[in-house]
């Protein structure tokens, strides 16, 4: 994959049927900043390679650039935690963050990972009263529901809240 710019971040974006491997030119912003940004519904990525979720060795298309519709995205996975935190998640939190081990049911996927929340926020509060469109998970394993032998793993993941059907707290 072409990657001539050092500010580019590699990530896998998952919709219900496809996986899109690409890079984003995040400049001084993180993937979290870009996805959580409610002023835009789209995310432009570069060097996009698309594969069917249940047929990972087939690259069905590649494009120099592609546009992702944020609300249609199921989740985005990266191998670098630093690229998923928003600026306010990285700096200046008054309460120490806590990790909650959770299970999330998504269309075609089951996700397990750690939900990182500021001290007084619980997963229930996050899901019911926060207006943000996404959740950030760490140390994630995503399993394809119909093909459990196919798993995707990443250090961090951003999940679209609208796509979540069930959340289980494992701790």
């Amino acid at each position, binding site marked *: 994959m*072409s*990657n001539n710019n050092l500010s580019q971040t590699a990530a896998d974006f998952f919709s219900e049927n496809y996986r899109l*491997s690409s890079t984003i030119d995040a400049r001084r912003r993180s993937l979290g900043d870009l996805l959580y940004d409610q002023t835009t519904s789209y995310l432009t990525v570069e060097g996009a390679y698309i594969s069917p979720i249940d047929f*990972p060795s087939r690259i069905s298309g590649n494009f120099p650039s592609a546009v992702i519709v944020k609300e249609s995205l199921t989740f985005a996975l990266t191998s670098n935690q630093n690229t998923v935190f928003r600026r306010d998640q990285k700096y200046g939190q008054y309460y120490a963050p806590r990790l909650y081990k959770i299970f999330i049911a998504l269309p075609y996927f089951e996700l397990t990972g750690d939900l990182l929340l500021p001290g007084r926020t619980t997963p229930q509060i996050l899901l019911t009263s926060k207006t943000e469109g996404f959740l950030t998970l760490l140390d994630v394993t995503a399993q394809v529901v119909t093909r459990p032998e196919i798993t995707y793993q990443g250090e961090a993941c951003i999940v679209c809240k609208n796509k979540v059907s069930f959340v289980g707290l494992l701790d």
Partner: protein
Amino acid sequence: MASILVIDDNYDMLEMLRIALSHRGGHRVSLCANGEDGLKLAKSERPDLAIVDVMMPDISGYEVVRQLRSEPQTEDMSIIILTARGQPVDKIAALDAGADLYMEKPVKPQDLLDEIEKLLSTPQKQIESGLFPVFSLRGGIGATTLAVNIALLFQQLNPSALIDFSTNSGHCASCLRLQPKRHWGMLLQTGITENQASTIGNLTMKHPSGLRLLAAPPLPLPADRLTGAHVNSILDVMQKKLRFLVVDMPPALSSASIAILEKSTKIILISSSDPLSIQSTRSTMESLKKYHDKFELLLNNITPGKQVSADKVEKTLRLPVTAQIPYHADALPNKLKGMPAVLSQPQSPFVSTLQQVIRTLLTQKRKTR
């Protein structure tokens, strides 16, 4: 030092790998920025190893690896897939496509060099026993001389036998200075008895080198006297007793020939570089398409002077030349004296090329997963 081909559409990555592999690793490196050109370069240069990226615009790295594995010229090449796609499924996909190793980007140059070293020093699986017919539909191009010398080289490794299945009074016995008092023609007269093992065993002669010879009848026979059933019985018995069997085949596609080819481990196809011989080899290959994967083509230079290049022969036959056998001026005197080159001139280029052929014959061809 190994020759390494890198196929990656990222120019920074190509440059980084060139520096790491050539400056630090001391390898000879060829670079290619897309899959199509990479495949062409792999076929023409035949590097020892290829490093292939997955996400490339024209054809994916998986497809490049599949095509490398499906081409006879590149099927045995060591291949590393080096990709930014770092999921467990990507590793499975890479190995399923036929790669030997999967590595994730970013990679430390030293880690890559260590893996290359390991991969290139891993011996390929060796064949421990087998049947190797030496075959050409055109006579007079040195097939018998090659069969005798190849059999003697096998004998130096393990107990082996040479079977002369020629129906036109074969010459293997005289090449080894043996009198064909016993031969497989006697089986046809008496019939193959229940006690096949001792019958056939008693018909072989032992050369001073230890090589067993099952000679051809001294007088010509109608080609159809030797049937596939006879051949199968003889080979079954001899394969139980000896590790390697080399067969000097009759230059005809009889039922006996087909039975031999059917049982063969690899088929040593002989061609000389003259147009008639190449044409004959081509028609042989056409008739024996189903055995294509077993062919090892030896281009035998039977005349001195400039020869047609192996590349041209490969293009015409669409089959890689396993070895080009150098002209051996003493081939005929050796034959007349009954002293094959392996015994009389073991240091000659002719014999060292045949030793290389033996190594190739003993290496299992890689199959695409």
